[in-house]
């Protein structure tokens, strides 16, 4: 099995992201299999740093969150909170020797609205060169 197949992304996304309903989620799960684990949340502001850390600890090589565009959050500041939390989570993982690029955030665009499927594809491309997380390396070798 190649590294790409073994690598897993935890993807948290606001339910406001275009075409992110149950059917879309199932289709994506079918497309990517175990490479992507999808976590719909009512607002990206609901995302806690702990969610990101536990994902990286338990199974993920990378964890991303997709938020509403700036100014478009239905709860006004959820996406801003998400951005700050991702930044803090990045500094935490960097302090233990993990690359901060394993955590990321995609803030939607009002001008060019992309679907969950499109954004998932873009994130997977971004992570193409990312190695399996050293947290899981030993487990995979066992």
């Amino acid at each position, binding site marked *: 099995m190649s590294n790409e197949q073994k690598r897993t992304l935890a993807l948290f996304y606001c339910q406001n992201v275009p075409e992110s309903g149950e059917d879309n989620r199932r289709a994506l799960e079918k497309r990517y299999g175990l490479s992507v684990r999808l976590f719909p949340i009512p607002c990206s502001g609901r995302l*806690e*740093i*702990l969610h990101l850390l536990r994902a990286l*600890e338990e199974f993920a090589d990378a964890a991303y969150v997709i938020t509403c565009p700036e100014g478009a959050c239905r709860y006004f500041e959820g996406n801003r909170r998400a951005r700050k939390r991702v930044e803090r989570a990045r500094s935490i*993982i960097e302090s*233990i020797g993990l690359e901060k690029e394993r955590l990321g955030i995609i803030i939607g665009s009002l001008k060019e609205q992309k679907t969950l499927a499109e954004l998932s594809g873009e994130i997977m491309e971004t992570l193409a060169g990312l190695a399996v997380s050293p*947290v899981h390396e*030993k487990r995979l070798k066992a």
Partner: protein
Amino acid sequence: MITAEQKPIDEIREMIAPYKRILALGCGSCVAECAAGGEKETGMLASALRMALKMDGEEKVVHEKTLDRQCVRDFVIQLDDLIGDYDAVLSLGCGAGVQAVADMFPEIPIIPALNTEFLGETKDQGYWLENCVGCGDCMLFYFGGVCPITRCSKHLLNGPCGGSKDGVCEVNPEVPCAWQTIIDRLSSFNALDRLQMIYPPKDWSKKYGKGPRKIVREDQQK
């Protein structure tokens, strides 16, 4: 409330290095309010430590638990049934909490994960500010509810130093001049005459010099 900040993770890792089974113990009170040692932060620290340990190939166990308060015996005693499973406790309580747990379980090393900072208030979300040093002889009445010991950089009891500019302290330009605030506040109460009194030097023996302070209330005891 008591405020604290988490120690650098490298320092924490060095302290827990000799131990194999560690309980990360959070506190649901002051340190939860200042986002340093509550249930969330305990989970975050434990998760980060477990990842770090896995990467280093270390065989250690890090579990988590959060007490409502670590400084009250009735809560700390909840650890009685489970503390024997661990050879160290990493406490995310303030200094009072760390020591309360250590006093109750003296045979288990209790390691502090936080640096306890000051008594203060939550001024705004994510912003805590010191406003009391616990001098034991509160004079806030005379100064309109503004403590010159804590909030004046020079701890002056008898009027401003004269160095402030536009209401800002000359020692630290980020700090509003406490005496400007005192004068404004007492003026609004028509109580400026309180400043006509000369206040003697603070009696610090009420805070220092006799070991740890205590309060005993027999009416509160069994």
